[in-house]
């Protein structure tokens, strides 16, 4: 059974309780971020900070609008990090859709950072390994909801069976449209096969306003490397080795120098 987080951005009040819950549950120290004149805790995710409320400032109808969005791992069905990872078992996809990092197997190459269309994984300078949201796999495994969901005071965050979350998101979208948000919609990008973190946006025509890429996909060079280049390499290496061997079998070595006659 697939699970999903549903993030109804229209209900987020920017209280950051989810950020605190995430840090607490995952037992992470808060490292003071950069103050850049924004209410946002820090500019970007960090190896020890997996859940960031973005305070996106957007001009709308002649005024300023805060479009809150919860920025974290999207737990993609076709995960770019997983596609790019060269270390077997370092990134795993659970039956419930969670994309989780296994740090015993992580080699810290950072290919997942390049493969991720959402720029989520972060490399730790101290452990030299990569970290991101686990969808609280240690909670969901025993039937608990993720800590960010548990703590949300406005029901902006809900968690459950994926189909149910999509149904709720559709209902909520219809309500928003009825309220006059004609571009309201669900963000569940199909380029990565859909995600297990789903957003309701009051303007789904421009997800960039919320800091979300419009059409995320697994980069084609990653797919080239994982697919055709592996075939090409196998053919070239085996062909060269077998070719050399059979060249020797057919033609033998080049002739020897004549031992001793003098010019």
């Amino acid at each position, binding site marked *: 059974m697939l699970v999903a987080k549903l993030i109804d951005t229209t209900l987020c009040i920017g209280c950051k309780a989810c950020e605190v819950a995430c840090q607490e549950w995952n037992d992470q120290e808060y490292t003071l971020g950069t103050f850049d004149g924004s209410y946002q805790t820090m500019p970007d995710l960090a190896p020890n900070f997996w859940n960031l409320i973005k305070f996106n400032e957007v001009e709308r109808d002649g005024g300023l609008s805060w479009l809150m969005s919860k920025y974290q791992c999207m737990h993609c069905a076709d995960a770019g990090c997983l596609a790019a990872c060269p270390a*077997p078992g370092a990134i795993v996809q659970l039956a419930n859709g969670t994309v989780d990092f296994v740090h015993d197997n992580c080699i810290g190459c950072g290919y997942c950072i390049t493969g991720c269309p959402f720029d989520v994984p972060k490399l730790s300078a101290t452990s030299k390994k990569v970290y991101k949201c686990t969808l609280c796999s240690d909670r969901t495994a025993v039937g608990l909801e993720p800590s960010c969901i548990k703590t949300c005071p406005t029901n902006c965050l809900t968690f459950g069976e994926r189909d149910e979350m999509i149904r709720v998101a559709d209902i909520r979208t219809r309500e928003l449209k009825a309220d006059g948000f004609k571009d309201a919609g669900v963000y569940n990008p199909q380029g990565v096969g859909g995600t297990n973190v789903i957003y309701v946006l009051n303007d789904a025509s421009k997800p960039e306003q919320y800091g979300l890429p419009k059409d995320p996909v697994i980069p084609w060079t990653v797919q080239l490397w994982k697919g055709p280049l592996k075939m090409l390499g196998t053919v070239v290496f085996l062909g060269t080795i077998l070719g050399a061997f059979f060249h*020797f079998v057919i033609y033998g070595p080049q002739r020897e120098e*004549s031992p001793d006659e003098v010019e």
Partner: protein
Amino acid sequence: MKSSEVRVERFDAYERVMHWMAALSFVYATLTGLALWTPVLYWLAAPFGGGFVIRGTHPWSGVLFSATIGWMFLRWAKTMGLDADDRAWLAKMDKYATHQHDTLPESGKFNAGQKMLFWSQVATAVLLFVSGIVLWFPESMPRSLRLASIALHPLAAIGSIAGILVHIYMGIASVPRSMRAMLQGWVTPNWARLHHPKWYREWRDSTNIR
């Protein structure tokens, strides 16, 4: 004067050290690189300390390899230029592969095949070095460069490894006594005349051994 009693210096100690530094770093970079290239070959990481260790050491072996290729370039680039005979030689490469050597134009210190290997290794080493630096520091490089390097690095490696596989085959099996030239540095006059006639005559004219 017997040919077997005369030593013609083919590679001096600098060139031999240079070649074997390139060879050792290449083998290390290749084996660890293949481990990271496909999960099927990930077991190759184990004898070198495992995936986490080779993630740290593979780039350094690449730096060493690139540096020795740079050294080779400085030392051999002039010698490796292709002349008219070399171009004619390349057009008849099938004759070389089928051991019909008498029909080929004469070679100098390096034959045209060796020259092509040299230039292809220089080219792939540049690609491997540049893309390797980008992949080494994922958090300091623009994503577009990283995306290009993820495909370019293995592509250049495939070309480079294929060339070296042929090179190793020539050295240990196909061309008798060539290994001694790179390990001990010398060949006999008859070997030189057989494989590199133009170079042989240069040697003969510069010495009074007959």
